[in-house]
């Protein structure tokens, strides 16, 4: 019962938001003289033969892996109220350094891959760590510093690619780092198609999928079941209460950003180790920003982020088929954008409804408790605020909410 109630908003709200977004973007398409039903048909048409269909599945999964990691990286920081917009720069810098190191050394199979991952994690964490150090020592907002560090990271990445890490022939149309030798490749998972009796598609399913699953499970446990996760969440819910409880706010900012950056460092590796083998000028970009949308849609919950990543990559897969059918591919961007907006609105509405009904329920419970004659049942109006400047929330039905004509709704923190 309580599990159901907790699950309700977690699942129901995003699903509802996605449905609303689909309807709205359908209307937008209609207004643009694009037949929305045709678009949706193409989207769900995965191909005619089993091999084509499995290829589509592999494309979706391969795209979902980096999106999932990006969502996780953003969500870790979100949980403690930090907005790490710098995921983009963190993963681009991590990927190029990892690619260069991977190409420069020769190690036996698993070790080589592990080294590349370790380098990516360290570089990502380092770059995010700069944000944390600036915030902790100088009070610089992480939003500002991480955006600015994105530009610096992209600049450094271009410099490295055209300078010290350049591996391609002079004059090549696409500049790239040197290829990672085969011992540093991630084996594909295509074996499982045979094992499951499905058609083996020509595309390679990224072996990094397994790493992503392990990272996701580990983070879910870390965030939900450990003291560290509790401290992190407490810091996000109320920094002042967290520090009064003994959480060291500065250390927490540092740890959280390092962890977020470490996960961000992994984002580029599925493509690097499973497909491209080198960092190029046209290496997948924008995953860091998509990660913000994925984390929002997944409500900062690893399982939710997995579904959100799958949804976004499912939408992305349709880009090519839509162009083949002569439909504008930008409808995908419209749908994704609408989903993000709808989810943000729905999350906020759900939060308010939950809070209001919680207050109401609590007030009812208070009133229903057999009075011992001294507890005032109607514990209600805003004058708990009294001289101390505590605020009205928590006592009794949303009195102030209905009452305050604009000024009442979010009185939280007024007493702070």
């Amino acid at each position, binding site marked *: 019962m309580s599990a159901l109630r907790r699950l309700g908003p977690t699942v129901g709200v995003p699903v509802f938001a996605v449905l609303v977004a689909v309807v709205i973007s359908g209307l937008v398409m209609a207004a643009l003289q694009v037949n929305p039903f045709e678009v949706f048909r193409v989207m769900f048409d995965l191909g005619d033969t089993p091999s084509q269909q499995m290829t589509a599945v592999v494309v979706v999964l391969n795209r979902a892996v980096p999106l999932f990691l990006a969502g996780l990286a953003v969500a870790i920081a979100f949980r403690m109220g930090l907005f790490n917009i710098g995921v983009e720069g963190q993963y681009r810098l991590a990927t190029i350094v990892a690619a260069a190191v991977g190409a420069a050394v020769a190690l036996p199979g698993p070790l080589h891959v592990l080294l590349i991952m370790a380098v990516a994690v360290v570089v990502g964490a380092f770059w995010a760590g700069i944000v944390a150090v600036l915030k902790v020592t100088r009070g610089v907002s992480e939003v500002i510093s991480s955006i600015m560090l994105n530009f610096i990271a992209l600049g450094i990445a271009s410099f490295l690619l055209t300078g010290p890490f350049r591996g391609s022939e002079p004059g090549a149309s696409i500049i790239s780092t040197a290829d990672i030798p085969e011992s540093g490749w991630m084996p594909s998972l295509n074996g499982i198609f045979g094992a499951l009796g499905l058609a083996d598609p020509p595309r390679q399913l990224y072996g990094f999928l397994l790493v992503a699953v392990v990272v996701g499970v580990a983070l879910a446990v870390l965030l939900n079941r450990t003291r560290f996760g509790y401290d992190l969440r407490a810091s996000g819910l109320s920094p002042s209460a967290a520090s009064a409880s003994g959480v060291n706010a500065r250390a927490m900012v540092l740890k959280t950003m390092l962890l977020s950056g470490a996960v961000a460092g992994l984002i580029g590796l599925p493509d690097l180790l499973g497909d491209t083998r080198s960092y190029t000028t046209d290496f997948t970009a924008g995953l860091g920003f998509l990660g913000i949308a994925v984390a929002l849609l997944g409500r900062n919950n690893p399982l939710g982020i997995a579904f959100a990543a799958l949804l976004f990559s499912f939408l992305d897969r349709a880009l090519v088929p839509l162009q083949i059918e002569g439909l504008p591919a930008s409808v995908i961007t419209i749908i994704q954008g609408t989903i993000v907006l709808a989810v943000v609105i729905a999350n906020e509405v759900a939060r308010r409804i939950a809070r209001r009904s919680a207050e109401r329920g609590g007030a009812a419970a208070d009133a229903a408790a057999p009075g011992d004659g*001294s507890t005032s049942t109607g514990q209600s109006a805003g004058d708990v*605020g009294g001289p101390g400047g505590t605020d009205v929330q928590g006592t009794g039905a949303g009195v102030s909410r209905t009452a305050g004509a604009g000024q009442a709704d979010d009185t939280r923190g007024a007493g702070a």
Partner: protein
Amino acid sequence: MAATGAPGATAPGAGAGPGDAPYAVELRGITKRFPGVVANKDIELRVRRGEVHAIVGENGAGKSTLMKTLYGMHRPDEGQILLGGREVRFRSPADAIEAGIGMVHQHFMLADNFTVLENIVLGSEPTKAGRLDRAEARRRIREISSRYALNLEPDVLVEALGVGDRQRVEIAKVLYRGATTLILDEPTAVLVPQEVDELFGNLAELTREGLTVIFISHKLDEVRKVADAITVIRRGTTVGEADPKTTTSHQLAELMVGSELPSPETRASTVRERPVLQVRDLTVASSAGRPVVDGVTLTVREGEVVGIAGVEGNGQAELVDAIMGLRSPAGGTLLLGDDDVTGWTTRARREAGIGFIPEDRHRQGMLLDATLWENRILGHQTRPPAVKGPFIDRRGARTDTARIMREYDVRAPGPDTLAVALSGGNQQKLIVGREMSAAPRLLVAAHPTRGVDVGAQAVIWELLKDARAEGMGILLISADLDELIGLSDTLQVMLRGRLVATLDPSDVTPEALGGHMTGARAGGAA
């Protein structure tokens, strides 16, 4: 727009006092429900023209709901509002203002970087050719100021004004809009004693000029001093009128509470020899470098309650922060038992046995959007029963939360309820239960009964007394002088960051204590 007086509602005699002029304000059978609770029920209020009418009641009794009804912020479900004998229905505060009702809020709503004049006219500016007519505004403000002895300078910036002056600006704002009935919501909460006297002088001016004042408060002594009539509200309904000249504060308090008042009196002394907390020459500097806690030395022994009295803002909050490790001191040492904890982190201090009931529970004591069992863990993240090694023990936390709810009378559906759903008293009982459950050596209790109802207050007092009897040392910071005198074994008075007097609570009166707090009396019975 205008107050929609029901047509022909001026039925002769309606709302008139016996053979008298009609009441300035009359409420008949006002009931206001919110989902799950009845905030006001059958409120009867009769205010004569030209009087100061006080409305007293406990926190949460429904005073503010009632005033919001009268000020048009929401509509009553039942009952009538009559002004001067005419029934009115307000759809918004604008209607109420139109009908001559003005509200002076407890928290001032003034723009600091505007002048007094600009603040007063803001929203109803006199204009000449589309521009603010300063001359006209200045003339009217001076007229209001001299008529009611408000003593306002129209061209001074508000940021240069003290609290008392700001309050007079608020009053002038309301008068400027033509109010004939003023509602003052806890006007003295922010004032120092001399300012309170000035305010009362102003109120006398207002009523002499024929205006009506509705004065909301729970400070009974002040109410008896200023009011011409008192209406008492208890649990959302009016329980009676009292004459301030013939009623004692104690009688009023019992009317408000509806039963014998609980008393904070402690039993025989349980003070032992061993000190649990020794503060030596503690100095805390403000961000500007000024000492806000200045050379404080005090000792809390096992089984002893040391009370810190003082007008708020004299360094008590900073002292608490320094003891909890939330603020690093500029000098001095802190000993917990035999350990020098001066350089310890907050967490290490809590693990070493300091419990903490913070001044502002929403800011420092709770995660409002988290469940009760998650709140059980807060501040105890490193200790059983809520954690096992690096992991959170969800079952253990839930079980222990259920125990706290049972033993400390926390009224809530269950450990999975969100903390925001609890009333202030229940939240506070949960915090007290949580801190007591860790069996601390020292409890730092800052305003432990602020904003809680009388029932919860009595429970919390009992818990503190029991803990003291078991040998816990308690540092009690409070603004409630009866609480301080009743619970403490030793009283320290804090003024401008220093401890200025040590008093014996068994022979000090609230009046004498108040004298020390404002610095009117020097020295101490130490």
